[in-house]
């Protein structure tokens, strides 16, 4: 479903991703772990199309389309979703107006008829319940005054509304307490199907207790240097990254 081939990306002339390969099939959950500065958040930003990052080489295929040819909004239309590590507060833009605009534009991109007000509202209600986000969204500005946990739940709520094919969760667990973590993970598990796939970027094994990955990858110096199943995450939790770094340095000698 998602195929990343030899992806190189840099920011301000500094190369961060140095030939990253990844293939994800429908229905799969892939976790990406790695030490600080290895390029995890850069990968998320590059996939979503953040302008500051320059892709110097490589391809990112979503089914039969190279996402790198598309603008951020077109990528969303194609079915990519990024749950932000730091969701932005946008005072003055109401959640409802934001979601209505997003859903209608994405539906329009996908060739679907616009939702009428009633169906939209019932969809909002249903998806809000999914992440136990009980805020009255109508008169709230996007993320403004939301607690850390609410912001992350709001990301999963938006994901549910936009029904992506590929969802990238960028450290969604950071700053969450155990309850919020469980709610977020349950939301993700309910959305998981054979028509979509997940890339879960995280520092901690804890999240993977709740969202069980099919594969765990270790990203180091801009490349995936090790791939395993969920037991790899446990091993990392126990031993840290030094043994992997050593392996990489050793093999490159």
């Amino acid at each position: 479903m998602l195929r990343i081939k030899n992806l190189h990306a840099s920011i301000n002339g500094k190369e961060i991703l140095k030939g990253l390969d990844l293939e994800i099939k429908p229905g799969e959950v892939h976790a990406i772990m790695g030490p600080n500065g290895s390029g995890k958040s850069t990968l998320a930003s590059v996939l979503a199309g953040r302008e500051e990052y320059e892709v110097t080489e490589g391809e990112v295929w979503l089914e039969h389309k190279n996402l790198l040819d598309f603008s951020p909004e077109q990528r969303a239309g194609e079915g990519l979703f990024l749950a932000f590590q730091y969701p932005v507060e946008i005072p003055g833009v109401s959640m409802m107006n934001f979601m209505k605009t997003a859903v209608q534009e994405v539906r329009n991109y996908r060739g679907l008829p616009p939702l009428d007000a009633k169906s939209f509202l019932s969809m909002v209600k249903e998806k809000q319940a999914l992440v136990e986000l009980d805020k009255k969204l109508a008169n709230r500005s996007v993320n403004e005054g939301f607690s850390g946990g609410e912001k992350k739940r709001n990301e999963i709520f938006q994901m549910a509304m936009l029904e992506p094919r590929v969802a990238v969760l960028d450290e969604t667990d950071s700053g969450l307490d155990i309850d919020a973590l469980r709610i977020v993970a349950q939301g993700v598990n309910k959305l998981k199907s054979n028509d979509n796939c997940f890339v879960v970027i995280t520092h901690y094994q804890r999240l993977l207790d709740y969202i069980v990955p099919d594969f765990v990858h270790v990203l180091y110096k801009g490349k995936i240097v090790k791939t395993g199943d969920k037991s790899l995450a446990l091993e990392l939790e126990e031993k840290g990254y030094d043994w992997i770094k050593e392996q990489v340095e050793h093999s490159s000698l």
Partner: protein
Amino acid sequence: MSTNTAVKDISPSLTEKILSGLPNHLATRIFSSCPSSRNESWKYTPLHNWIEPILETPTHDGLIPQVKEGQNMLYFFNGKLIHIHLSSELENCIEVHPGQTDIQPDFPLLPEKDNNHFFTELASLAPHAGYLIRVKAETRPAANLHILYDWDGAHHVLNTLNHIVVEKNASLQLLVESKSSATTSVLHNQLTRIWLHEDASLTLYRMHNTSSGFSLIDELSCTVEYRARFHACQVTAGGGLIRNNYKVCLNGESADANLRALNILSGNTHADSHVTMIHQSPSCTSNQTFKSIVSQEATAVFSGTIHVERDAQKTNAFQSSRSILLGDKSRSYAKPRLEIYADDVKCSHGATTGQINQEALFYLQSRGISLPTARNMLIAAFASDVLTGIENEDYLQKAQALIENFTGVHEIE
């Protein structure tokens, strides 16, 4: 900011033209005080750019429009009153004397903190038109009064002098609107003196939706007595030079003033707001919220002073001016100033100039919202807090229509 030495001043011959028709002794007196770019309060506003073209146009009047009956309204066409209608409710509460410019009631003189004699003298010594509104004590009409200035034609300078008195424990909501046709070429110079007595309240909604040949130099001079409140909101979209001076004196204890303005600027519009907020007495509050959305070659200027006198303890005074620049040639100048002589006060000021928040823009785009739509949402969001809490539906709708109209036109820049 360096002084712009390229700025020319109004030449003596042009000044004479502005003053033509005035008795000689008055003309000489005013002439000597004509401001130039060397004058601090006109530093960013080169007058001649707007005044010269107006003075060079031959004067003529447009066609007098048909007026819809029924609304509570004073209708001025090219500065002349052509229609007045007051409901019986309003007639019971307020006295209106339009056009009687010779009536100049006693008004408290405000301390001279800003050099703007030339235009205020011009308006007060030789007004072409004006009105006096007196809201009778203890009356609080539910209906609001609409004053419409409609401009179509070419004139040099039209001076207006207005007086508004709201007596003890009375209130009024006033909606003042200016509009002009594309062929208008006018400099409207207006002075409005306001006196709010004990427990009085005035809400003033102003809207300028004018063409580039229309320039305005407007001064509001307002005295707010014990526990009285003055709330003013202004939306400016279009025009040539739009200069708004606010001079507010919180004269009685616990008086309150709230000034808000939204400038939606494009083309060559130059919107310049000068505020002098004088806290004369203790326990008064004042708020200033000025926002500008500046595109193309437009300019926004804000210069605001909060002046707290020695006796004005327990003052709460706040000021904020924010601009976003949308074009490479858009400009914004801000000069916030606090002068505090009392020692137990809360005062703050903040001024920002920036662009659309790129992080917010990316966030919206990443949810599938196209770039132009996302920009428009953020522009409207920037404007929104000036308009929050406005109770007048009609005004709110017109303001929102102006924002929508602007974002519709300026999708790609």
